[in-house]
């Protein structure tokens, strides 16, 4: 217990040290504009990756609709600051809350599905949210919203990111988090042990959506413009890629994955025609040679073709029991 606490404070200390260094770099204007916006993007992506990790990595529910939650948060907070002059922090929180409501709404009917079917349903929901935005004049339709005040500063972003990482990480370590891990490892066994699996799946979905919504709000207030097209399923894939590259089920991994993908994206921007090709080759090679991700700790499967169960089956076969 003591050790965990030490690790926790060490992490917080490192984060603040990083914050201080960047703050100095920003005030002395050593950082270029590109690097500045990259830093903000990294923060937003960390929030997205860590929140998706709670859903996919910890609870084992494969969701490809994370960009949908992000867009709900982005649109809500942008409309609040643009049209209703709501201050920045309440607007972001409101965006997160509405996204959380969507998390409950989507979670309730779909979480009876599992594995691939849940993935497809969430993909469908993400696309439906995008198409609703696309066809609603109130939120700007296809051209989206522009002229959103760029209110996301480094300090704001840092604290939002830090708080979300700490909260999610503490949730994972709590009793509830253990219940979620139990669901990931074996849903039927978890149910038999008296865990209300549906409830925990909805909790995980809601918390994930909450932070994705806030990340959306922060990114909307960083880049002036949001369009429905920026929250399509490619964005959802990108978030999954961060989580998987970092290592499913590991918060530190999600952070590393988010940083890695953002860096890769930003620095490959100079070779636009090669960017996506290099990116996809990295993905494929990574999955073939290190499927557990950069910092992966746990391997788990979504079905009977997974390694773990294959191993278990082998064990049963070799021991001779039918």
């Amino acid at each position, binding site marked *: 217990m003591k050790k965990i606490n030490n690790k926790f404070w060490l992490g917080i200390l490192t984060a603040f040290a990083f914050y201080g260094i960047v703050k100095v770099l920003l005030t002395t204007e050593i950082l270029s504009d590109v690097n500045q916006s990259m830093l903000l993007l990294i923060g937003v992506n960390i929030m997205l990756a860590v929140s998706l990790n709670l859903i996919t990595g910890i609870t084992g529910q494969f969701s490809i609709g994370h960009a949908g939650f992000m867009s709900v948060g982005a649109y809500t907070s942008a409309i609040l600051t643009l049209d209703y002059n709501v201050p920045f922090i309440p607007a972001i929180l409101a965006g997160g809350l509405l996204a959380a409501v969507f998390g409950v709404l989507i979670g309730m009917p779909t979480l009876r599905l599992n594995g691939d079917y849940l993935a497809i*349903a969430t993909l469908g*929901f993400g696309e439906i949210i995008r198409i609703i935005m696309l066809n609603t004049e109130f939120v700007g339709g296809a051209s989206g919203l522009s002229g959103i005040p760029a209110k996301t500063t480094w300090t704001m972003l840092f604290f939002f990111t830090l708080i979300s990482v700490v909260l999610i990480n503490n949730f994972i370590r709590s009793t509830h988090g253990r219940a979620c891990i139990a669901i990931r490892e074996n849903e039927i066994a978890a149910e038999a042990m008296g865990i209300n699996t549906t409830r925990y799946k909805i909790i995980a979905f809601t918390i994930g959506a909450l932070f994705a919504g806030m990340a959306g709000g922060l990114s909307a207030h960083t880049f002036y413009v949001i369009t429905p097209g920026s929250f399509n399923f490619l964005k959802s894939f990108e978030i999954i890629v961060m989580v998987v590259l970092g290592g499913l089920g590991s918060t530190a991994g999600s952070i590393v994955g988010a940083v890695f993908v953002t860096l890769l994206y930003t620095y490959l921007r100079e070779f636009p025609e090669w960017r996506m090709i290099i990116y996809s080759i990295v993905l494929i090679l990574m999955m073939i040679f290190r499927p557990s991700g950069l910092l992966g700790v746990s391997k788990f499967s*979504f079905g009977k073709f997974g390694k773990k169960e294959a191993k278990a089956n082998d064990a049963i076969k070799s021991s001779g029991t039918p």
Partner: protein
Amino acid sequence: MEYFIQQLINGISVGSIYALIALGYTMVYGIIKLINFAHGDVFMVGSFIGLYSAKYLANAGLPPIVVLLLSLIISMTISALLGISIERLAYKPLRKSTRIAALITAIGVSFLLEYTGVLILGPQAKGFPDIMDKKQYHLFGSSIQVESNQIMILLTTIILMLVLQYIVRYTKTGKAMRAVSFDVEAARLMGINVDRTISATFAIGSALAAAAGVIFGMTYNSVDPLMGVMPGLKAFVAAVLGGIGSIPGALVGGLLLGTVETEISSLGFSSWRDGVAFAVLILILIFRPSGLFGKNVREKV
């Protein structure tokens, strides 16, 4: 009423394109339980191969029907080879790996095909040559129109379906495919070469997607490297709708989705079309998770 029937006919011709792509999805999913996201891009590649071979063959002065058949065959053959090599290079090393790793790889392959296409062909849409002259027929003297193109599409789809049905039902490969999708280990014990069967599945699925690509090019006269994304997703929806793993299901799902979409567009909600497709998907998943034709598999405890 006539308007409705007209839209139904248009819907069936869009739906048969979805159905052809959905077959590839459903076969691959049925065998290795992988959502092959790259399938929509194989469709794109097939379309481009069709475009270039049709151009080349038409310049050689062959009659239109020969041009059509030859470019279909060329496109289907090359795409089948592409499908096999994708499976060998990207998916086979992951066969024992986690589902999510395989899925991410499929997404990676999809990006790779799309952006290699952009790099080689440029991002702009290209015009597809008119292989056959388009004629319009009126059904029973009414105002309902049927284009020669639509008849051709339907014919091609039906012929390909029959061939597929024959392969799956009566050939050795088809029997092996059914056995592997039923139980991989048991099939292996019975002496079935599982790797070869999976390759064959990819080859057949990719060939069907390529045929759909050529047909798509002829219908919409425009192809581009990113065109596989939406039809790919829609075809996947169609496969799920019909019950993934079921061949008649893919056909029915594709036709149903195409019809619903066209009717929605004709009612003036064309910008909601994609949303409706996904809404149908979610409703189906909630009320009948294994699709219209799927078997309900109980989870083993």
